[in-house]
């Protein structure tokens, strides 16, 4: 099973009732898999006429209280931003998978991490947030999908799963097991027919003086709760590290190899891998940021997450960036070289 298929099966395991999507490389295995499996499970699969249709079908299905998802790749996700903004305004749960590729524009179909800003800052308009999960293995793609549907329902938010073409195509053994779900609030807001109760209204339009401000403050309070409770990250050998590498997704795997090799050479390297890109592990990074360390951020982009690392480090340590944009993937030796160079700089500094 490749990553894309594992992710699709995990969505079914998570109770996804409806899948909507439009073809785009490198995620076509997801709709292909769903087109076969969803009808087998008595659930909905639709190939839409465009990405705009797909995200609005998610909008509609979610409004009825059903678990709905879509998947696409970078240019398609750009088209969906309008819908994601409206989902945020209407406080509806949704799961959106981005198997990213190089941009801007049509770019190429190689793996890239250049959608970090779009995912974490919200590519649509208005004051809103989306939860962003960044798996780095096929197993974690499964785990993230199971978590994504729960988080979406708990906070009535869009949860983006941000992976890339490598993870989508990669094959690894997985365990498909539904973990005990968290306690979720009842969907008393859903459009289920108003017999015997007041009607429910799904909307993102809040006219009237101060009404939108009140609504936005309510969203803000909710987002703060997410920041408080839902940060996920992995740390390794940070305690004695002189160089702390921060990387997510597939890049973190390459970092892991480079860090192990550096340790063999006696260079004290540790790493931090954010799993939630929003909420970002600001506190976890801040806690270990001090003047005896250098932070190295590695991304398959021209430098996006590095801004969040800088905000977390807040001037307490130097933050260096190394990136390969345009769908290029750094090698272990390339990163090892970069780490060696930093050691030299570090010694000069001390």
């Amino acid at each position, binding site marked *: 099973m490749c990553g894309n298929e594992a992710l699709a099966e995990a969505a079914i395991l998570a109770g996804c009732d409806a899948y909507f999507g*439009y073809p785009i*490389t490198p995620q076509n295995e997801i709709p292909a898999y769903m087109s076969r499996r969803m*009808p087998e499970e008595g659930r909905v699969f639709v190939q839409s006429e465009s990405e705009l249709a797909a995200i609005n079908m998610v909008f509609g299905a979610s409004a009825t209280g059903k678990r709905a998802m879509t998947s696409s790749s970078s*240019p398609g996700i750009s088209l969906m931003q309008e819908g994601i903004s409206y989902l945020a305004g209407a406080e509806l749960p949704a799961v959106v998978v981005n198997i990213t590729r190089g941009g801007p*524009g*049509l770019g190429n179909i190689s793996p890239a991490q250049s959608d970090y800003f779009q995912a974490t800052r919200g590519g649509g308009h208005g004051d809103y947030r989306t939860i962003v999960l960044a798996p780095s293995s096929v197993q974690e793609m499964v785990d993230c999908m199971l978590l994504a549907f729960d988080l979406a329902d708990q906070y009535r938010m869009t949860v983006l799963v941000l992976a890339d073409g490598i993870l989508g195509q990669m094959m690894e053994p997985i365990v498909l097991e539904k973990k005990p779900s968290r306690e979720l609030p009842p969907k008393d807001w859903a459009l289920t027919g108003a017999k015997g109760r007041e009607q429910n209204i799904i909307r993102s339009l809040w006219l009237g003086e101060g009404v939108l401000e009140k609504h936005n403050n309510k969203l803000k309070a909710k987002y703060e709760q997410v920041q408080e409770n839902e940060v996920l990250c992995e740390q390794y050998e940070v305690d004695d590290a002189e160089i702390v590498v921060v990387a997510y997704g597939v890049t973190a795997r390459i970092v892991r190899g480079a860090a192990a090799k550096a340790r063999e050479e006696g260079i004290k390297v540790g790493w931090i891998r954010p799993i939630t890109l929003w909420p970002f592990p600001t506190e976890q990074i801040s806690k270990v940021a001090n003047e005896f360390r250098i932070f190295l951020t590695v991304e398959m982009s021209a430098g996006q997450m590095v801004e969040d690392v800088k905000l977390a480090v807040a001037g307490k340590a130097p933050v260096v960036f190394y990136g390969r944009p345009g769908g290029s993937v750094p090698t272990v030796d390339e990163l090892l070289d970069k780490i060696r160079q930093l050691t030299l700089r570090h010694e000069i500094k001390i």
Partner: protein
Amino acid sequence: MDTQIFDMHNIDIAWCPGCGNFPILKTLKQALAELEIEPANLVLVSGIGQAAKIPHYFKTNVFNGLHGRALPAATAIKAANPALTVISESGDGDMYGEGGNHFLHTIRRNPDITNIVHNNMVYGLTKGQASPTSQIGFKTPVQVGGVFLEPFNPLAVAIALDASFVARCFAGDAEQTKEIIKKAIKHKGYALVDIFQPCASFNKLNTYEWFKKHTYYLEDSHDHSNKNEAFKKATEEEKFPLGIFYIKPDKKTFEENIGIYQENQQPLYERKPNTGKLHSLIETFKFAD
């Protein structure tokens, strides 16, 4: 004019062997050469898809934009410089699916452009999903039980919207296709040329043989000024007619309708801003002494 003037050298063509896009590429070059249209005066505008790669294999001015959005860009290019020959060329997924809304409204707007659609009834670039024109029952790795959606009928839609030129060709017949493309380019106003194009890799149903068997040319007696007759022909499904279905000759183009060319023929892109007019406008906002 020699067709070689449009040839690119040392390029990798990404189409599969046997792809119906090859004969269309060749035929379009021939049509343009016979019409003596210089590469410098031509713009090929496309969106995304296998067909949308055609401008990359053409030595001329090229605009390769967003998925589904070739027609709005082509409309604007023509409006900015009406002297250019503008051809908006893409596949059925691009023009009728993602760009379906633009297809409708470009016909209504009637810019003097040619809209060539490579209709292979499948998404080739993303490896074989059903497209808006896929036939009912067509099985793919995504439409596992077969397509059950009514296929989009571009010709009937275009005729219903009173498009100024509506034709259909088959990529397997280069000679007729060339003649129809030539007429479409010469036609003043929006011209749709839907071309049946076999996809050798992902559409095993609508092959060269299938198209040969399921098409026929409209009789010479077909009156392409008769809208009802054209519509009737466009809705035939047992065998798909080929040829020119409908022409509405004297329809005003978008360029003729927009104010900017009614008094001044100078193309928009050549015009300098009228600073005098701007100054007098600013004057009107000033407080009187």
